[in-house]
């Protein structure tokens, strides 16, 4: 059996119950867990303060008052007491604020630690998709993919975040806080995924017309599964198996597709769009817009501007047969 197919089957499973797959309230990584604890510390403290203020307000509004008013001496005494109460409340504010600042500082220190054995991945934002580079000390083992990140569970990961055009922001709330991708700079995000599963990341900095549709899948899996996936990705594109797929490969190479997209092992070697060498094995196409099926590939290629208005993929005129063939071929590229 082709080992490259295994991870794909595995990927489909966690999609079923994924309501909290982009939620800061459902931490599945080291950083997110730390932040989740901090979040509740702040929330509980602040709610208590807010409640106390409103209670005092209610008491001030509806407390019993002398119908005829009070003497000046009594008035002076209650004003003095109010002054003391205000002083105490201000002191309490200072103490609470200092405590929260300190807790916040400690959390920052805790989550920024780098690990020498961390898995380093370079993620680069494009309008409106993500390029993912798994570097390797052996150059032929390095590979590019797009809109999907695979991570081995329990191993620290170091993401080097950059951008090819405007500012984007990388955010997987279940695993870590967000970090911007800024032209002329490189930011680093360090965290350790703790539980296997599929998580969703989304661009958090407004980046233009399709900012809403710039998502990324993150698959956290057992180390063995991760290694299998990695080996499969390092391999060149799968050869066409049927005449239709062979025709699809020719379309890919002869039409405009190859000007922007790369399929390693073929003549298509463009670098403007996502690398399609293993596109059929990814969960989604168009940065999270559609599930990867032959049908959705065909729909996307036939009219990318209706599916994702304003994106940078032009409509390439194809005959019905060419469209059939090229989508069959891409679906084969697992």
């Amino acid at each position, binding site marked *: 059996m082709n080992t490259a197919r295994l991870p794909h089957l595995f990927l489909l499973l966690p999609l079923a119950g994924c309501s909290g797959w982009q939620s*800061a309230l459902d931490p599945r990584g080291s950083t997110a867990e730390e932040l989740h604890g901090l979040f509740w510390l702040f929330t509980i403290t602040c709610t208590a303060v807010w409640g106390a203020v*409103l209670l005092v307000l209610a008491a*001030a509004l509806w407390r019993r008052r002398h119908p005829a008013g009070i003497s000046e001496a009594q008035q002076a005494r209650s004003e003095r007491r*109010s002054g003391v109460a205000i002083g105490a409340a201000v002191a309490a504010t200072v103490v609470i604020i200092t405590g929260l600042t300190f807790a916040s500082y400690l959390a920052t220190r805790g989550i*920024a630690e780098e690990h020498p054995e961390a898995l380093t991945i370079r993620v680069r934002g494009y309008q409106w998709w993500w390029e993912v580079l798994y570097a390797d000390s052996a150059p032929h083992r390095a590979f590019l993919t797009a809109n999907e990140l695979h991570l081995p569970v329990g191993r620290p990961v170091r993401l080097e975040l950059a951008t090819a055009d405007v500012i984007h922001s990388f955010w997987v*709330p279940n695993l870590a806080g967000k970090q911007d991708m800024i032209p002329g700079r490189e930011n680093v995000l360090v965290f350790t995924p703790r539980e296997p599963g599929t998580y969703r990341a989304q661009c958090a900095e407004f980046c233009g017309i399709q900012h809403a549709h710039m998502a990324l899948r993150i698959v956290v899996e057992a180390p063995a599964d991760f290694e299998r996936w990695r080996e499969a990705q390092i391999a060149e594109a799968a050869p066409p198996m049927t005449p239709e797929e062979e025709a699809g490969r020719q379309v890919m190479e002869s039409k405009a597709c190859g000007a922007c997209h790369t399929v390693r092992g073929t003549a298509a070697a463009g670098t403007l769009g996502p690398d399609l060498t293993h596109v059929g094995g990814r969960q989604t196409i168009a940065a999270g817009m559609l599930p990867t099926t032959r049908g959705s590939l065909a729909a996307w290629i036939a009219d990318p501007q209706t599916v994702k208005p304003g994106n940078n993929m032009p409509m390439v005129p194809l005959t019905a047969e060419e469209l059939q063939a090229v989508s069959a071929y891409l679906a084969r590229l697992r």
Partner: protein
Amino acid sequence: MTRPPEDRDLRDTALDTGQEPDALERRLARIWRTPPGLVNALSTVDHKIIGRRYIVTAFVFLALGGVLAMLMRLQLAQPESRFLSPDLYNQVFTIHGANMMFLFAVPVMEAMAIYFVPLLVGTRNIAFPRLGAFSYWVYLFGGSMLWIAFILQMGPDVGWFAYVPLAGPQYSSGKRADIWAQMITFTEISALAVAIEIVVTVLKQRAPGMSLDRIPLVVWAWLVMAFMIIMAMPAVVTASSMLILDRLVGTHFFNPAEGGDVLLWQHLFWFFGHPEVYIIFLPAVGMISTMLPAFVRRPIFGYLPLVMALLTMGLLSFGLWVHHMFTTGLPRLGESFFTASSMAIAVPAGVQIFCWLATIWLGRPAFRVPFLFILAFFFTFVLGGMTGVMVASVPLDTQVHDTYFVVAHFHYVLVGGAVFPLLGAIYYWFPKITGRMMSERIGRWVAGLLFLGFNFTFFPMHILGLQGMTRRIYAYPAEMGWGGMNLFVSLCSVAMAAGFLLFFIDIFRSARHGEPAGDNPWEASTLEWATSSPPPPYNFVRIPVVTSASPLWDEKGSLPVVSGLAVNRRELLITGMGNATPEVRETSPQNSIWPFFAAIATSVMLVASIFTPWAVVWGAIPLTITLIGWFWPRGTPEDDS
């Protein structure tokens, strides 16, 4: 032209003969009035007329911005909605933000100051009133430009913050980002002009005896606001000018490939942008401090701490801007510093809250409509302040930044902290402006609908943000599970819209049919209630003399007044900065059409410079001509002295 000598210096004391009881009023009215007719309406420099126009215009922009908000809620009510195209949605949220910040919130606070500062400090007109007229027209033209561009499908679509490089020449072709940047220039010019007027009026035109410790708190707040405008606005003018230069003449301030820096934009923008929040918020809390005594029947508790709190917040707000940039990867130590400074502002904010609580505690609350808005403020703003403490923490901010949590947070502080007090202030001061009361019954409905509508609309957004919903997205997949809560939010926003609609209905109804208010319907203590409602063109028949912080409460009988001011020309009293001791009689400018022409020349120049840099050169010529006309000596006593 020679005048009879007695006519050159006719004083009000000369009219005290008792033969004609209202001779003084008639004289003053003739000198200060704005005659009927279009040209006269365009020429007026009466701060009340300009202030009223300013307020009305700002509320028109509020209503327009509200319509955009409802469009967004309609779009987001269900997943992957196709009601608005992404292009239109991006324009809608950009203009909603830019409009609410630059065309509503900041101008409306200035507008209230233009109308009320001279009345509250007891003078006849604002300082440099022609500058005020100029400011209004520039504001009106700049705001109109933004909306006309939107109607022509040329509306900015880069967010109200216009981050580069998205707003730069490479990624925003067309003129949309230029429209945004030039709209900034318009509003900055008008804001700076008003700020200078406020500073000079408050420091030099206070009624005799209104020493620094007797200034009404809202006037203190406006003074701090004006200084903040003067210090913060140049940063954004610089930034937007650099953006226009990058776009128009090919400079590379923000292009890293040529040695520019994209983060420079964010530093400059937020160095202005964060103080701007306090430019909006401080006048609002000043309004609360000034209204509250009237509804609890006692002077404010803790005048000095409240003034100190205003000054401290004004100062601290300049040290917080980096908390808008916690996810840009700045050095950790710097971030911790800005966490501490952001949290520190909770201390003066707390001082204010505690002083108001003590004032209510010690007083006897009367639950009239303005007071209801103050209560809505307490509930809402304090909650927004708490989430503010949360976003001030760097690590927490990395989770909630640019999500609906932040959308909820800043609407809590801006609507809760500024709009609720402002609406209370409208109910409070409407009788002074129009001479008629707004409806107490409708007002309760307005307050209730807005309070409930607001909280049910915006509270769930905190949760949506934590569940991963990012800002500025025109659509979201159904599988995210955000649909139900978004539908709920959209439905509740209808209640809020209904509240605003009812508010506007009440305004229109009361302006015509409201009950006559009398001079002082709330039995309040500050000077604006000492004159008639609406005030005459000259504000006060005689300038009052102030002997306490609550003059109308502490002076039994009538206020002591100043006499000896000229009545044959516009004249007011200049007093010392500290103790407000009378220094000199000073003339106040006449009506003039030139500020209107100067504003037109400025606007033409600014709009044309979107299309060619030469507009700045050629446009300077008509502008110079209008300024010469403005300052040309005319041989009138006002202009010559």
